[in-house]
């Protein structure tokens, strides 16, 4: 394969201005002509022009179905598709591991539940989760629990510090077969003590699946370095297109997997009365792959690779911390999260008397796109006895000026309506 990680230039410190120029949507006016200020990056990030172009160019020049083909376009498409897999493996420190393309983090976790857990767990086996999980890391395990009689154990977190109760975890993980845990919470922004979780998980002889949907945009995970067993990610939360994500799987876990969906590409031989399957990643990729999406994601990784990831992380955290400091000054405003070193650029907040939806509408009318609701983490919110929060979440193109504008809008709205 032609691509090598040497093709990535030495990363430089993030230039927000330069980065920003690559995102045409950030120039948009919304509603009655207000400048868009996009603060909903934890839901989905915007895409650099390079990613949009990579997909357009693929469709304009190289589009063909991949694998098993002996014509030029198909070769080009196959090479580009597999090259993206390789780029992702390099990016995530998983060159000795398997990377299966899925439609996103959600499908990646469902894949783990079907391809690994369904065949390797039996009645009475234990899965440890946390009360901080996104629904995508709850519902598949509930379904499995119901089907197979597997037990789910929940690790609580502290309502003041927003930190997982690691003592409780250490007890819960004893005798468990699997731990499913979010790396960085999409509501609190809290980065969990992954290293300790991995250590305790493996000490207990269990496997770990990490939900890294929110980690991937601001952290360069080292899958093999950390020793994770399975890792779920979405392209659309890190500058890539919709419709694609991945489950990264270490070799020993992969070897225990059974096929999930059946169909083209994942088979070796199909007979009327039985079939045999591929032995590499293709075993878990049934049907025509997400070809343009994989190529777009590869372009997103290329784009990301130009920036020193630490500077990206620090920039987001700085914006989040400033936001928190300013929001705290508003009477009646509560912040959910600690925003410490390592945490994500996500700030959840709720005013005691201004309805979250109303605040979001007032902000929307002023051009601010923020998210409001349960953020697909109802159990987490229920712990706080609330049904919704407002949430702003930053990515590398957000500016301090945008934060200032946001804060001044919230102040104005609270003064008027709260």
């Amino acid at each position: 394969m032609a691509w090598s990680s040497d093709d990535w230039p030495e990363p430089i410190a993030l230039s927000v201005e330069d980065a920003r120029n690559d995102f045409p949507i950030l120039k948009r006016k919304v509603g009655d002509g207000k400048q868009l200020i996009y603060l909903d990056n934890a839901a989905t990030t915007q895409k650099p022009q390079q990613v949009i172009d990579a997909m357009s160019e693929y469709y304009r020049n190289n589009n063909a179905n991949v694998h098993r083909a002996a014509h030029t376009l198909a070769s080009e498409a196959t090479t580009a598709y597999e090259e993206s897999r390789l780029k992702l493996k390099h990016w995530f420190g998983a060159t000795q591991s398997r990377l299966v393309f899925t439609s996103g983090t959600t499908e990646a976790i469902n894949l783990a539940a079907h391809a690994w857990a369904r065949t390797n767990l039996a009645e009475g086996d234990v899965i440890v989760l946390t009360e901080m999980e996104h629904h995508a890391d709850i519902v598949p395990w509930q379904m499995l629990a119901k089907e197979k009689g597997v037990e789910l154990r929940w690790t609580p977190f502290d309502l003041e510090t927003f930190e997982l109760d690691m003592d409780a975890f250490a007890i819960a993980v004893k005798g468990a077969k699997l731990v499913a845990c979010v790396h960085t919470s999409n509501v609190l922004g809290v980065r969990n003590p992954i290293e300790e979780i991995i250590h305790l998980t493996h000490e207990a002889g269990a496997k770990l699946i990490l939900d890294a949907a929110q980690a991937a945009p601001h952290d360069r995970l080292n899958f093999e370095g950390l020793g994770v067993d399975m890792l779920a990610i979405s392209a659309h939360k890190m500058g890539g297109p919709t419709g694609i994500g991945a489950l990264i799987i270490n070799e020993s876990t992969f070897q225990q997997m059974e096929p999930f969906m059946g169909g083209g590409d994942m088979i070796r031989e199909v007979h009327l009365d039985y079939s045999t399957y591929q032995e590499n990643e293709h075993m878990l990729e049934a049907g025509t792959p997400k070809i343009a999406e994989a190529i777009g994601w590869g372009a997103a990784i290329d784009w990301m690779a130009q920036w020193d990831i630490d500077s990206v992380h620090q920039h987001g955290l700085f914006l989040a911390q400033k936001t928190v400091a300013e929001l705290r000054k508003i009477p009646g405003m509560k912040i959910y999260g600690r925003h410490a070193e390592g945490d994500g650029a996500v700030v959840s907040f709720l005013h005691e008397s201004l309805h979250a939806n109303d605040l979001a509408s007032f902000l929307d009318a002023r051009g601010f796109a923020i998210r409001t609701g349960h953020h697909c983490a109802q159990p987490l919110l229920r712990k706080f006895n609330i049904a919704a929060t407002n949430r702003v979440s930053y990515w590398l193109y957000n500016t301090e000026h945008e934060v200032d504008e946001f804060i001044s809008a919230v102040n104005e709205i609270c003064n008027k309506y709260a």
Partner: protein
Amino acid sequence: MATTEWPEKLLEIIEDFSAAFDTSERYEMLFELADDVDELPISEWTPSTKVHGCQSEAHVLACLNEDGTFHLRGAADSKLVQGLISITAIALEGLSLAEVAIFSPTYVEEMGLKEALSPSRANGFLNMFKKVQQEAALLGE
């Protein structure tokens, strides 16, 4: 129902909204209108008053005035949603049940609010309006 046929009080509101400078101002007006509704206190919220398919908690109760014309009470935890209930109450106040039954919910569009309502909130409004009409129909039985 064509524009000219809106009840006078509703027409006034539509005109106010149309004259508004921007969506921010329209939301402000909506927020203020919330207080004008004959508010259904939380103590009277029941499963049967609840509007389903609405992102916030919204409740409506269809009543009759002494003269047998329509009267709406309602409330919501979101003030903007309560503002929409309030406008609906103003729109339908004093109409006959037959008139309520054929009333068109398009006034939100004329107020320039439809496009400002997110798809989920627009659905919430329509669900609320439909519920009001259904309750009104029940009153007439």
